């Protein structure tokens, strides 16, 4: 009985932890921005205020069933991803799914968003989502190569296994620096931060996919963002920084990992779509391929 209960508890706790940590990451994102922009920034509970407020809106405009399903997919995809990401003391089903499943699950939110936004019939949203899919294509190539490289290096597709290996030997970042660098690039794209922010682009297409989202749908996106930041941070930590043996180390690592793209985001503008694709397919892919060559 204990294993099942434990597993269920873990499956419940892991997304919850992800959400809490994600909220802190959102706060960190905004605080980093504020600091670089020479200002104070939001109060500590701001991410919670925002989400509660959005869910508490009286009017909730939906654009049909597909719209709703799209959003559920977006949030659900990440929630599902959380249980594949091991945290100290909890592995969830990470050892069962492995990194390949995770990669697929992580595509679900983007597709879900595309589905939902397509229903809004807002040209800005459509442009945004078309850019988002292109962006996904752009960062997924290096990402997949990195994942394969890492998997090849560790001879395992299980994140749990990789973490154990790293904790026993050496962090992945030291063994595969090129792949780690490529991974950082892909991470920047995955988090949708400048210079790879083209699909949000408030100045051009009014936040693109989010343009018709409101109330709890917007709240859903905010929740999704918390999961997204968390997922990116944990994944990278697990692949290259040896996960965490305890919570303090783990949290420190993921926050540091997430802080890097966040800081970079505030001092760069965004690339155009084609530039982004070109850059993404050039440097990270090249680095990753060379990295693989070393690994193999």
């Amino acid at each position, binding site marked *: 009985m204990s294993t099942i209960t434990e597993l269920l508890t873990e499956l419940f706790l892991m997304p919850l932890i992800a959400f809490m940590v994600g909220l802190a990451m959102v706060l960190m994102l905004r605080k980093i921005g504020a600091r670089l922009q020479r200002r104070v920034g939001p109060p500590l509970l701001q991410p919670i*205020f925002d989400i509660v407020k959005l869910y508490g809106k*009286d009017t909730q405009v939906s654009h049909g069933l597909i719209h709703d399903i799209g959003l559920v997919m977006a949030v659900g995809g990440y929630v599902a991803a959380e249980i594949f990401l091991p945290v100290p003391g909890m592995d969830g089903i990470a050892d069962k799914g492995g990194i390949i499943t995770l990669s697929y699950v992580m595509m679900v939110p983007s597709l879900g968003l595309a589905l939902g936004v397509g229903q809004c019939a807002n040209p800005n949203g459509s442009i945004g989502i078309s850019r988002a899919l292109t962006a996904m294509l752009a960062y997924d190539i290096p990402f997949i190569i990195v994942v394969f490289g890492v998997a090849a290096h560790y001879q395992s597709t299980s994140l749990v296994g990789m973490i154990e290996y790293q904790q026993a030997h050496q962090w992945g970042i030291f063994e595969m620096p090129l792949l780690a660098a490529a991974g950082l690039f892909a991470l920047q794209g995955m988090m949708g931060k400048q210079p790879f922010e083209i699909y949000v682009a408030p100045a051009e297409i009014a936040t693109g996919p989010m343009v018709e989202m409101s109330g709890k749908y917007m709240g859903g996106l905010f929740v999704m963002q918390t999961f997204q930041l968390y997922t990116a941070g944990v994944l990278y930590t697990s692949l290259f920084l040896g996960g965490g043996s305890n919570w303090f180390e783990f949290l420190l690592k993921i926050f540091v990992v997430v802080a890097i793209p966040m800081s970079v985001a505030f001092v760069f503008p965004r690339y155009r779509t084609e530039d982004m694709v070109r850059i993404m397919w050039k440097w990270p892919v090249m680095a990753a391929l060379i990295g693989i060559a070393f690994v193999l």
Partner: protein
Amino acid sequence: MSKIGNIPVNAQAGKKRTNPLAGVFDELVQFCQSRSMFMLHYCTGCGAIELPPAMTSRFDMERLGIQPMVTPRQADILLVTGYVSVKTLKRVILTYEQMQSPKYVIGICSCTVNGGMYWQSYATAKVLNEYLPVDVYIAGCMPRPEAVIEGMRRLMRNIEEGKGHAWKDYFQRYDYYLGNQQHLFGDDWQTPTDIIGEARHYGLETEQTYGEHTRILEQHQQPLEPHKMRIKF
């Protein structure tokens, strides 16, 4: 899910609340609403020039949880920053109607109160609260960022105390507002949002929701057909 006009809507409003914790929950929501205000990024008039300072490093509105949003759907506050020309007023009304309740209007500058320095102008609307219910006014021509922030804080206090309900007035006295709008824009004025339907939906309709002006509207109203659109990827 129900429909208002042809826009489907999910809403809990109007439902009977039986939960004993509903009061606490409402207060929590109000508290969060007052501390998280998304502001619509719409520069209607010259007062908009003092918003960038108020938003950016020097006066940093984000300290109060206020941040700019780019679409009306996501916004809670509509800042009418100064005079609204008749042409803009139409868009302001459309924008306002697209915003999601609870929503708040802040009238900045003299011009929103009594025409301001453009009182002789044939092109600007004079008294904003004839066309939209206004929650808070901020005096100045234009008000300094500090004054804007003070206005925001007043709105925050109002929301926290549960006083900011001007948006309900728009549903409750729709006929009055519609009448003024028709007087300015002509009888064939209509917006894509079905306000009466929404009022009914929220249970906010009163006798003053209907009147001669809504009857005129019914005569002219055409259903809004969403246009098919394709985008080449």
